[in-house]
Every structure is written in structure tokens, then in C-alpha cells.
């Protein structure tokens, strides 16, 4: 059946709208289950372990490294203007405003987001979700909700830890290695970063990123085709779509907030 270009466009538009509708319905279902008992605290705690605790290593390590690089690069550039004493401010502001929330979100998407999608997708493949339905248990309530919420809650904490480790990495390089005065580093950092303009913004960003990645990972897993290829597609799709979405929303939030 040959379709004209217009028909294809129409078909795709309808498909897209239907897709968006399904996603909205999914988010709605999660939201509804969130405000209703059973609260599933045990499962939530387990998911926070999987998302948060298991991501600690990569987040803290990357944080320290990124901070060190910032310290190095920042120093080199600032030294040209004789402004090395502002290193703390430069490292701190870059981290708090942008690098912290964005890099943390990208790392967590890759590590925990993909794992989340893979787990749910393989539960679809092995009929575990149908098994739950047959026991009159809603899979969105039992499986999806704790995971999505765990991602939402863990992200700001991981972001804060990333920033702290990065600030320390910058300190190590700037102060111990390159000779910036320790007190000056810390003071310039503390003076430049304010709660209202910077820290509140970073927390807001990381909460939004957490929600987005939590939704994308669980949605991709939940709607995966029940085959091995489907599991793989869900996993890689989560990383790709999740990463792009984080970057896109970073721009949107920055533009709206003025951060």
C-alpha cells in the first residue's frame, strides 16, 4: 500500500500524539500510586540502594576528577589575568550551576537508568509483570513507583556529593599542587556561591533531572517488546533519550530560572 508523503506525515503525527498520550497516562498512573497506600517503603529503600548507593562510586570518583580538571584549567586561565585567587569561585560556580547537576544526571542515567530499564524490560519478557497482574497487584504500583521515586530522591543527593567531591578535587589541585592559598580558595568559593542564585537552582535541576530519568527509564522498560532485543533497545534507548532530555531541560531550566 503506497502512501503519499502527506499520509505518512499524518500517520506519524497521530502516532506521536498517541505516544505522548501513553506517556502522560504512565506518569499519571505513577503519580496516582505515589499518593496512595500501600507505601512500599521496603521496596523504595531497596531501590534507593540500587540507584543511590550503587552509583556512589562512579559519582564521587568522577566528581573528584572533574573538580581536579576544573582546578587545573581554571588556574591556567585565571593566572593569565592574575586572578588565581578567584579559583575557588570559578570552580565552585561552574560546578554548582551546571557541571554538578548535568554530569551527575548523565552518569546516573548511564549507570542506574540503564539498569532500571533493563530490569523492568526483562520482567516484561519473563512474564513477571503479568504474574503480578494475575495476583491482582498493579505492576506500576509494585515495580515502577518505587524505582521512579528512588531516582527522583537520589539524584539531588548524588548531585550534592558530586559537587562536594569536585570542590575537594579542585582544592587539592589548586591549593596543594598549584599554590593557591587554601583560605582564599574556600572564601572566594563561599562568597561567590549563594543559596538563592546557585544552590537552590542546582537542587531544583537535579530533582527535575531525577524525575525525568526515573520516568524515561521505567517507561522504556515497561513498554519494551518482550524479547532480548527489546531489553537491549530499552536499555540503550534509556541512556540516549535520557541523556538528551537532561541536556535539553538543562537549557530550558537555565533559561527560565536565569541561573
Amino acid at each position, binding site marked *: 500500500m503506497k502512501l503519499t508523503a502527506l499520509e505518512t506525515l499524518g500517520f506519524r503525527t497521530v502516532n506521536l500524539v498517541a505516544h505522548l498520550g501513553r506517556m502522560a497516562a504512565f506518569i499519571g498512573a505513577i503519580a496516582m500510586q505515589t499518593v496512595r497506600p500501600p507505601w512500599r517503603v521496603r521496596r523504595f529503600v531497596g531501590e*534507593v*540502594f540500587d540507584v*543511590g548507593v550503587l552509583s*556512589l562510586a562512579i559519582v564521587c570518583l568522577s566528581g573528584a576528577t572533574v573538580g581536579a580538571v576544573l582546578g587545573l584549567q581554571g588556574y591556567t586561565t585565571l593566572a593569565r589575568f592574575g586572578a588565581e585567587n578567584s579559583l575557588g569561585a570559578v570552580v565552585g560556580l561552574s560546578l554548582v550551576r551546571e557541571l554538578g547537576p548535568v554530569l551527575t544526571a548523565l552518569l546516573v542515567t548511564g549507570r542506574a537508568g540503564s539498569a532500571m530499564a533493563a530490569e523492568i524490560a526483562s520482567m516484561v519478557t519473563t512474564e513477571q509483570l503479568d504474574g503480578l497482574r494475575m495476583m491482582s497487584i498493579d505492576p506500576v504500583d509494585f515495580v515502577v513507583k518505587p524505582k521512579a521515586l528512588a531516582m527522583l530522591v537520589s539524584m*539531588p543527593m548524588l548531585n*550534592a556529593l558530586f559537587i562536594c567531591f569536585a570542590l575537594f578535587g579542585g582544592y587539592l589541585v589548586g591549593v596543594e599542587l598549584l599554590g593557591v592559598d587554601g583560605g582564599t580558595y574556600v572564601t572566594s568559593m*563561599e562568597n561567590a556561591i549563594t*543559596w538563592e542564585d546557585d544552590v537552590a537552582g542546582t*537542587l531544583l535541576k537535579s530533582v527535575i533531572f531525577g524525575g525525568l530519568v526515573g520516568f524515561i527509564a521505567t517507561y522504556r522498560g515497561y513498554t519494551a517488546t518482550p524479547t532480548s532485543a527489546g531489553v537491549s533497545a530499552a536499555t540503550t534507548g534509556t541512556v540516549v533519550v535520557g541523556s538528551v532530555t537532561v541536556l535539553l531541560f538543562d537549557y530550558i531550566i537555565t533559561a527560565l530560572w536565569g541561573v
Partner: protein
Amino acid sequence: MQPSATRDLIVGLFVAIGLAAIAYLSIQVGGLSYKGPGGLRLYAVFDEIGGLKTRAPVAIAGVTVGQVIAIDLDDALRARVTLDIDPRLHLPSDTSAGIRTSGLLGDQFIALEPGAEETTLAGGEEIAMTESALSIERLIGKFVQNSGVK
């Protein structure tokens, strides 16, 4: 990890250090402090506020004692700034308020210089003596004018 007391403990620790990191960033680095409303409210009217913004700090001798909470125009179309100040302070009624810049190119803030009167300012009162913001353009303009007129 299987549900266990150990797992719960580890998650608890994670949340604890996560919240501690957030608190550190907010309070120590970001300067968040609990400043509820209910401080001493004072008004100051200026001809020119320059780049003064709300939430700009109010300082005495360089020490932050409050912040600007509102800026609007009064009936005479001059800028009326509302200050929220630590209620424990007793400011003499001839205290003056000036708009200063922190550093050469920094943000603007309000500097209060206490006077010598016995009576103190009460809530809702207006600071009589105010010094408007210095505008670099005007200064340069004056300088140019002055050197021009010879």
C-alpha cells in the same frame, strides 16, 4: 541486595551523607540562614538606587544585618526601599543609609551608618538621611565637564 537490616543501614547512611552534603552546600557555602520575617522594618527613600536589587544585603560597618525586601516608588516618584533588619539592633534615629558597591564592579548593597541620637528607630519608620547610589557615568561626566570648563 536482599532486604536486610544491613541494607537498610547502608541506605540510611547514604541518605544521611547526601543530606549532609546538601546542607553543607546550602548553609556553609551558599550562606542560607534562617531569617524569618519579623525583623525590624525600616524605609529609606532615595533619588537614585542604581543597580540595587531586592534581597541585597544591608550592612553596618561591613557586617550584614538584614536585607532589602522591597523596592517601589513613593508618591513623590522617588525610590522607596523597604529594609528588613535584625530586630535586636537599636539604631539611633539619625542613622543614615547609603547605597554602596561591593568592590569596584560588584553588587550594590545598603550601608547604614549609625548616628548619635538617644532615641532609636522603631518599626515602620523612615530613615531620614539617605545617600543615593554613585553612578560611574555621572562621575565621569562631571569629571569631563570639570576638566572641560577651564
